[in-house]
């Protein structure tokens, strides 16, 4: 494409197939304690 560069195609829909195992860290545990950001957690589904 001439006018658009796609950086990523989107992973949210694809992640629906995951089981939602909730083994990932809790967003407030690592460093924030006041301003949780969920999107910066790594997925821990093995």
């Amino acid at each position, binding site marked *: 494409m001439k*006018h658009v560069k796609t950086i990523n195609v989107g992973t949210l*829909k694809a992640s629906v197939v995951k089981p939602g195992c909730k083994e990932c860290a809790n967003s407030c545990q690592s460093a924030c304690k006041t*301003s949780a950001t969920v999107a910066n957690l790594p997925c821990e589904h093995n």
Partner: protein
Amino acid sequence: MKIHKYKLFGKNIVIDVNSGAIHVVDDVVYDCLDYYENKSKDEIIEILSNKYSNEEVVEALEEIDYLVKEKMLYTEDIYKDMVINDNSPSFIKAMCLNIAHDCNLKCKYCFASEGSYEGKRSLMSAEVGKKAIDFIIKNSGYRHNIEIDLFGGEPLMNFEVIKEIIEYAKSEEKKHGKNIRFTITTNATLLNDEIIDYIDKNMGNVVLSIDGRKEVNDKIRIRYDGSGTFDSILPKIKKMVDKRDKNKQYYVRGTFTHENLDFYNDVAFLADQGFKEISIEPVVLEEDNPLSIKKEDLPVIFEQYEKIAMEIIERKKQGNEFKFYHFNIDINGGPCIYKRISGCGAGYEYVAVTPEGDIYPCHQFVGKEEFKLGNVFEGKIDEKLSNQFKNAHIYNKPKCMECWARFYCSGGCQANNYSFNGDIHKPYEIGCEMMKKRIECAIAIKVFEAMQDF
């Protein structure tokens, strides 16, 4: 809102909210997107005729059509029913263990009233700590990973009990097939060689508090005699980080207030000290507190986040990278949609336990009696209250449903929502604005990294 577009560092960035796709577009596409949903092709050509030729607009619209067809733009939210119909059980898998409701510092912004949480000063006993371990193992169901944050007050004021609790947790995790990961959050004043070694060996993560430059830190992070802590803690924090097993986590974490809105300088100062994992958080205090973040501070704060993002890009080019906690977004991975819609987990996956064994939805709710969920000696929690938290997801927060950032922040901090608006479903507006700016910056950094490949 199906898309979000913004300009940053000379790039036109477009986020497709419901798929998470990210595009960098030229000015023609950027302008076409203002009208794409509501105007016809001919109308858009006409509206933009004074800026672009017919051919340019037609070409741009064709590319937009392609992205729509390929489900990378203007996609629909397909997750709502999945959440509403989710009847799967919840298990508690993270705990903030308030080892000490006491502190040897008197930081001016402390939400925990110098560690006491507006109650009496107290230290957790090993008995309560062990009961808390039993409680979380029993209530963690089939979750394998369990996280426990040793928190306070200052948890190292109760170091002997910490050792006893961890020893107990290690024996219990084996028996029950769990993986318990400990984090400690400390003001670093009590670190010595023995404690540094112990933390390195036993904690998956250590959060070391310092606000940045000496003049900033020592204005706020003070002892009872009013003296600043900077000169004492910086060498100890450096020693802890130097000794740290490189496969394990640490964060050097500070807070900025209305009095140091130039906190880019504090982040840069910490990076100059050689720290690679940095988190500087906005203070959360009631509006009339002179240190609190005001709405009118936002433009300056946004500028600071941009400067931090640019600093990261520049230092990365020089091979001298550092990470800023809130910018650590993985655009090609990250948590699955189930996690993104369910938020921080406070009250149903995550709880805080006081030295007396009382259970609250998180450390920020401690002391608010109406939010007490139970006690570790009873071994169970108030299901009704817990369910209120479980159901406080983005689809039950009208403001979040209008917001492009909902799958990145997941509804924000329930405690802040309650403190500012009296309702966990109503987001804390200043927090939202800062969050959105951080996400924009985080994505812009990723765009810069990706564009190197083009």
